[in-house]
């Protein structure tokens, strides 16, 4: 399956722009995972960790995000976060 194009943008800079397998996003109404080919979707996010998967079982990164929203469209997933810090 094709990879998901994932972008993480903060007001200060474009933090991530890469192709990944899956991203788990903390939405206000529950976490949701986005794979490639996800239906167009838009959600506000709560403060929490984004988890990035490069393969079905491999976690490549956790990023703590605060305030913002996530948008899934034909091009992929874009997370606009007010603050983002790499979590350990």
């Amino acid at each position, binding site marked *: 399956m094709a990879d998901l194009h994932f972008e993480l943008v*903060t007001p200060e800079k474009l933090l991530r722009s890469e192709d990944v397998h899956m991203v788990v996003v903390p939405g206000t109404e529950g976490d949701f995972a986005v794979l490639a080919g996800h239906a167009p979707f838009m959600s506000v996010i709560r403060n929490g960790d984004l988890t990035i998967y490069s393969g079905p079982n491999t976690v490549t990164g956790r990023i703590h995000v605060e305030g913002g*929203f996530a948008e899934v469209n034909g091009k992929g997933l874009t997370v606009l976060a*007010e603050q983002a810090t790499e979590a350990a």
Partner: protein
Amino acid sequence: MPSLKSLKVRITSVKSTQKITKAMKMVAAAKLRRAQMAAEAGRPYAERLSAVMAGLASRVAIGPGSPPLIAGTGNDQVHLLVVATSERGLAGAFNTNIVRAARRKAEELLAQGKTVKFYLIGKKGRAVIQRLYPGKIVHQVDQSHIKNIAFTDALEVSRDILARFEAGEFDVAHLFYARFRSALVQEPTEQQIIPVKLPTVAEGGAAVSATVEYEPDEEAILGQLLPRNVAVQLFRAMLENAASEQGSRMTAMDNATRNAGDMINKLTIQYNRTRQAAITTELVEIISGAEAL
């Protein structure tokens, strides 16, 4: 005719001025590069945000029930002019240009019988505005302690402005800043931030995402997004302003350095002429003295 000594003193003084302006120019050039990078790094977020906003707004019917940030208060009597200037001077016409743009708008609004209030970011516009419109400044944000503008700084300012909006202090807010085009060109820009002016969605472009699911619903998202948008616009204006300020200062200091150079040349020529004249007079005196014997 100035004496040799006073000419020499002037030349030294202009030389040290030139050294200062040269140093300031170099500092501005270094800072400009950083500010420009920050301004460019901030663009993707602002662009995406406005794209999302436009997409959302085209799906939500804007009526009297909509949040006042988008629909307005139903009134446009009191206008708040948010004027972003720099904290330091010696940046050429940078601050003057921004204040002039704000002033033009203020005159226009006053001519229409509206009330105008000022909200200042940075201290350099204060003196002029205080003199022209005494008592109209509602608040001034001091940024002199901030070295690199962070989003949280903009967030703070936007919270304050939004609180004032909710308290009914004003109906419409305009933002004034200098848009950074290049080191040589900075455009004073006016932008309406409250209520939000949405970019019109290009027909067909937005229709593609017609079946987007929203969580929570469109209106709730829009309600969250609108205050955020104000912060982002402010942040962007601050970054653009910072880059413009450095660009403007660099140009101004470059000119000043060149002018000082010209002045030094002129003074040196005058100094040499005076010296020559003094020598000639002295010689003539000696020779005529010798002849008299």
